[in-house]
């Protein structure tokens, strides 16, 4: 933030002021203020909140189900709601025309002809395909819906004739959680080893540091590939999902662990830890009461920063066909379908999951950046 950094340690926001009565809540508040100030971080977190909400409410936002196929509309271009009919009349309520679809035997292309006689209006909060939210709320209310035979595909359909718009949000459930699950596993693993290494030192520390050193220097993709190839192929897609998370975290925990270790290492020498040790507090107590809380904010920041890599990892693995398998879907898997020449040339709408991936990664980067600054309010 401030380039001069430590140049006025005694003059401005030095430790003298922290304890002042007016500033008791200042650490947390300062973090928030600093975070709020970072507009990009704020935007990033808003985007992410929306993404995660959309993933949770995928069934509601998408007009169609995850596996609902529209047999006459495979790889269909977007069929958007319209406001102006073929005669040029304006309608405030969006509508669509029903489409006839036939394959032209000469060009092998599907030809859509719209039936302009009937307007099918979009219904909002209307009943459609049933779905569940969070595994227990069963409902069939969709944000918007149009009655058969008309269709509305905001982002077109995939080669199986499934609504891409709906599927992207179902895919988000996997892609967005794989990062969280992976990071949580990394956190547990990395924090335990990091704290243990930093606190106890010794041989354990040496060995774990050596392992981590190799691990974090290793290019990720070959390691992912090698580990993903280990997943028993007979596993169901849910098991696979967790296996992929584990693979991602196995590759990732090292960096996290190393940073935690560094912090613990520094904290170990702090007065209050030494005091606790002289007071013959147990190691466990020192770790859980003193070390963990003090490293927590940093750990969370590091975790946030490593989520994008995990999301990209899942995307890459699924893109190569080594990741998530149907009937689940994920952004990587959706993109796996999009890596065809025909898609790039004739069906570009199938690339929209890439936009979601990019937006998510960028948002996480923004957020992580903001959190990192905020977590260290005295950095400047």
């Amino acid at each position, binding site marked *: 933030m401030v380039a001069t950094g430590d140049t*006025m340690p005694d003059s401005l926001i*030095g430790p003298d002021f922290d304890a002042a009565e007016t500033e008791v809540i200042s650490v947390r508040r300062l973090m928030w203020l600093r975070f709020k100030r970072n507009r990009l971080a704020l935007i990033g977190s808003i985007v992410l909140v929306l993404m995660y909400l959309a993933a949770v409410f995928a069934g509601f936002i998408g007009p169609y189900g995850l596996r609902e196929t529209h047999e006459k509309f495979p790889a269909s271009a977007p069929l958007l709601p319209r406001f102006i009919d073929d005669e040029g009349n304006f309608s405030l309520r969006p509508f669509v025309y029903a489409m006839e679809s036939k394959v032209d035997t000469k060009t092998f292309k599907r030809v859509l002809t719209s039936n302009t006689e009937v307007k099918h209006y979009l219904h909002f909060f209307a009943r459609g395909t049933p779905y569940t939210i969070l595994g227990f709320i069963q409902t069939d209310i969709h944000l918007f819906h149009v009655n058969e035979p008309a269709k509305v595909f905001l982002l077109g359909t995939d080669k199986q004739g499934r609504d891409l718009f709906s599927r992207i949000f179902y895919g988000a459930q996997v892609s967005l959680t794989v990062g969280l699950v992976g990071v949580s596993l990394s956190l547990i693993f990395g924090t335990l080893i990091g704290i243990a290494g930093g606190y106890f030192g010794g041989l354990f520390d040496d060995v774990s540091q050596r392992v981590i050193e190799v691990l974090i220097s290793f290019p990720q993709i070959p390691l992912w590939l090698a580990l993903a190839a280990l997943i028993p192929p007979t596993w169901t897609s849910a098991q696979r999902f967790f296996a992929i998370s584990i693979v991602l975290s196995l590759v990732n925990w090292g960096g996290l662990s190393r940073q935690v270790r560094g912090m613990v290492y520094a904290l170990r020498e702090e007065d209050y830890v030494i005091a606790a040790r002289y007071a013959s507090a147990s190691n466990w107590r020192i770790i859980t009461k003193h070390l963990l809380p003090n490293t927590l904010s940093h750990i969370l920041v590091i975790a946030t920063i490593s989520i994008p890599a995990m999301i990209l990892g899942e995307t890459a693995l699924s893109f190569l066909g080594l990741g998530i398998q149907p009937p689940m879907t994920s952004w990587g898997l959706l993109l796996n379908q999009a890596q065809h020449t025909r898609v790039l040339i004739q069906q570009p709408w199938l690339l929209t999951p890439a936009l979601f991936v990019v937006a998510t990664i960028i948002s996480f980067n923004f957020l992580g950046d903001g959190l990192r600054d905020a977590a260290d309010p005295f950095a400047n």
Partner: protein
Amino acid sequence: MALLGENGMHPNLLEITDLKTRFFTEQGVVPAVDGVSLQIKRGGALGLLGESGCGKSVTGYSILRLVRPPGRIVGGEIRYYGRETSRGEDLTALDERSEELRQVRGAEIAMIFQEPMTSLDPLFSVGSQIMEAILYHQDVTKSEARKIAIETLDRVRMPQPADVMKNYPHQLSGGMRQRVMIAIALSCQPKLLIADEPTTALDVTTEAQILELMRELQDELGMAILFITHDLGVIAEMAEDVAVMYLGKVVERSDIETLFADPQHPYTQALMQSIPKIGQKAGRLEAIRGMVPSPGNVPAGCPFHPRCNSAISGLCDTKAPQLQQTRAGHWVSCFLYDDGSNAKIVTQNNSLDRKTPLP
């Protein structure tokens, strides 16, 4: 305008007039230095005394224009009579990246800092860091610069200066590093040395040696010193004149003997009483009541009134006193010595202006 001395030389080396340096932070604007005026005589030694956060360091940084964003000098004048000895030049008017300013830094005015441990570039040898200063200010060859550097090291009483040249900062102790810092500062024989708490980070023995050294050097070289410290003892040893700062303002100013003999401002008095004196029983130390408020949250009226034992309610908490001369060369900013007739009424001296756009 002060009188010109003989041969048209201005008697003062540096004159700071109504300096205002502010920090535009996310919580608002912090008036770190709020209308400070000081004079440093040629070859004189001015002590700037105050607690942490009173703005004394920022004042020092302001002179060399070392205040970085979000800090900025917003008003006042720093007139330097080192080169333009009669008319002087206003350092605040110079561009931060200008060649003119660069030639002031190090060559005319040098500065040493509180933290000798971090104030040297860890990747370069001590010698090269001293030589760097010389090479950028004097038209000498490398080997000449080396010679000067060794001489300077010798001058700061560095044992085996030629060997130390090859050492890296991390190989030296704190005191040695501070000597190196002083050597860097002295290598170009500046007319003014700003010493920003140069001994705070050092142990007592080393502190004494460094202070001793600085005094000797001042005598030898005849340069002026601006000595910034919170330590009355240090001030007593080093300074001829003293300015006491509190929350960005100078509250009392006089020569050193006067100040120690008759401190007038309640804050200065409190400071004096907080020093343990030989013969006084431990545990009877008088501390100043309360804490220094945040500079971003300056109380209305006299900034010291919430902690002041002699505060006059209705006056001190509404009006800000001005610096008044109570006797020759002794200036105090307090209503105890002022009827308040020419005081400004400041109901809200809180400069936390949240509407101010952030830099």
